[in-house]
């Protein structure tokens, strides 16, 4: 081809293009390789905030927020950010929301979380008393719960043909069953069925639970391990029953009354997602104001009305009633506003030693086939 672009011209063009791309990357880097523009950088799980909250927070406080829904899994978040946190870098976030056990890891084992600014916590008194002193953060210096949930059994009654009330009944279900890929939820629920104390867990105490699970997987009584993709499968009938999280099921139960959630008779688990400020955060004060704002019962009620998990804030039930409409109906939903009886049936999975966590993670991985 003589009328096309000559090789020399092509190479010159390619070099120019490369230089241009490099310069653009460099310019982008000047604005902050982490995408920071001086605003408060918040990371959270998907669909875990009401749509108007960020705008209202900005209006009330004058703090600009970049809100990113990029947390999908505690382990994945940890694997992605550990290298930067370990060398005391900034992960590009001032605020993250993570489970109790990983909050424990960041606060107590690794010292990768920084305390909240006490002077900016004006609504902290609204925290439910039951959540004020968790093992992973006594006195709540580093963390405040974002939302609280329960782990129990969900089942589709049109498939099971009967109610499921215990872990044994779950394992005897005639149909496809799934348990959670989160080790503490699955093993914890079976530990409660075996009579073990989950508030002081250990590999030895979990032994009977592991044996039960291993037998059930070998016999085909447990068919799958799932993240929260069990939700769709339960609704469509691909799963008869599954270990499940209350908030997920609260939402499908309203569309499909055949899907039900129970705390097993032997007891369920309660957990919270914790707001944390990671080490290296540029705006710890603003991050403290962010979580504090959600401890105003009015803002908390709007959050609950949308995400339908249990709120850690006192006075939310009254505010939900005041909001009226579908939000007011949530007051009577024990999965959103749990009764004292229900709360008496659940316990929080305690802290594992590093060795026990290693042992149990490895054994659980073998159970899942990985």
């Amino acid at each position, binding site marked *: 081809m003589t009328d096309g672009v000559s090789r020399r011209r092509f190479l010159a063009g390619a070099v120019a293009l490369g230089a241009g791309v490099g310069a653009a990357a460099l310019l982008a880097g000047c604005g902050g390789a982490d995408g920071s523009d001086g605003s408060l950088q918040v990371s959270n799980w998907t669909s875990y905030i009401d749509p108007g909250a960020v705008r209202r927070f900005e209006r009330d406080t004058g703090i600009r927020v970049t809100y990113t829904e990029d947390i999908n899994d505690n382990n994945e978040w940890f694997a992605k950010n550990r290298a930067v946190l370990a060398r005391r870098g900034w992960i590009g976030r001032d605020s993250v929301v993570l489970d109790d056990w990983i909050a424990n890891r960041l606060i107590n084992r690794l010292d990768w979380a920084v305390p909240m600014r006490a002077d900016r916590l004006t609504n902290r008194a609204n925290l439910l008393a039951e959540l004020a002193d968790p093992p992973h953060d006594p006195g709540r210096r580093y963390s405040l719960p974002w939302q609280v949930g329960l782990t129990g059994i969900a089942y589709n009654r049109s498939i099971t043909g009967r109610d499921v009330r215990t872990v044994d009944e779950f394992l005897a279900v005639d149909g496809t069953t799934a348990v959670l890929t989160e080790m503490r939820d699955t093993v914890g629920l079976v530990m409660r069925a075996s009579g073990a104390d989950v508030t002081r867990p250990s590999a030895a105490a979990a032994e009977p639970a592991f044996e039960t699970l291993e037998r059930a997987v070998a016999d085909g009584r447990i068919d799958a391990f799932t993240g929260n993709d069990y939700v769709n499968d339960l609704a469509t009938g691909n799963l008869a029953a599954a270990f499940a999280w209350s908030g997920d099921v609260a939402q499908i139960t309203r569309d499909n009354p055949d899907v039900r959630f129970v705390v097993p008779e032997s007891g369920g688990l309660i957990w919270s997602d914790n707001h944390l400020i990671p080490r290296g955060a540029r705006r710890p004060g603003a991050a403290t104001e962010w979580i504090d704002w959600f401890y105003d019962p009015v803002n908390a009620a709007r959050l609950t009305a949308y995400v339908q998990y249990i709120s850690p804030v006192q006075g939310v039930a009254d505010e939900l009633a005041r909001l009226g409409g579908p939000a007011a109906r949530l007051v009577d939903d024990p999965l959103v506003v749990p009764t004292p009886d229900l709360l008496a049936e659940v316990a929080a999975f305690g802290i594992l030693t590093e060795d026990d966590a290693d042992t149990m993670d490895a054994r659980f991985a073998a159970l899942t086939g*990985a």
Partner: protein
Amino acid sequence: MSGSVERDAQGRRRARWTPWLLLAPGVLWLFWFFYLPLYSLLRMSLSTKPSRFAVPEFSWAWSNYQQAFSDYGSQFTRSFTYALAATLLALLIAYPVAYVIAFRGGRYRNILLGLVVVPFFTNFLIRTLAWKTILGDQGGVVSLLRTVGLLDANEVLLRTPIAVIGGLTYNFLPFMVLPIYVSLEKIDPKLLDAARDLYSNTWRGFRKVVLPLSLPGVFAGSLLVFIPAAGDFVNAYYLGNAKTTMIGNVVQDQFLVQNNYPVAAALSFVFIAIVMVIVAVYSRLLGTEDLT
């Protein structure tokens, strides 16, 4: 001395370093994005970590390889068995499709090729999740198979090896269709005319002319399907169960859940080594001379 300056046929000066300069971008690219990461992976695979969250330290820890073989042999076997099955199935489906498009497509050739590729504009994950609905216990496929008696009332498709292999086949199918199409499309139709002139029937013409000439496409296609399928973990995760996990699932769990980078790196290295041996043997059998 004029001998130090080389000149080409047109009498232009030729610098000795020019070939090296032209090679430099490729070599640098290979070094930074292939050899260096590979070295880093090898080093990690021979490391140990003092505690779960400590940075692994290099220590010639061959025990990681021992663990990779002893604990995860079944996942390796499964990965390569499933990948082989998916490759064969993809070949069985892709060859007739590519043949029809190349020889019978006529003016619809581009549209037909587009139809092969268009579904793959959708995200890989979404396509895999769609199969969960299609193969679901309450879905149409299962009820049809139950009606015709191919499945018992208690038998399902989802969370079985069939679903995983099916997912792998579907997800990597275009990588088989396109290379085979390219090699078939290059075949000069006059060769088939010549075969007919020599009293060859259609089948014989296909066997003696078309098939040998399309082998480079088959070779490229089967590698393009086999290698990513063997390392895949998404299909086994969403369409399989605890007894259908592949080596990709183990690597993912070791990296992300157990934070055991050395064992994960050793598993990856073993995987690379096995794939290289398979590719070497395969290329010996099928030949690669005509790949370009």
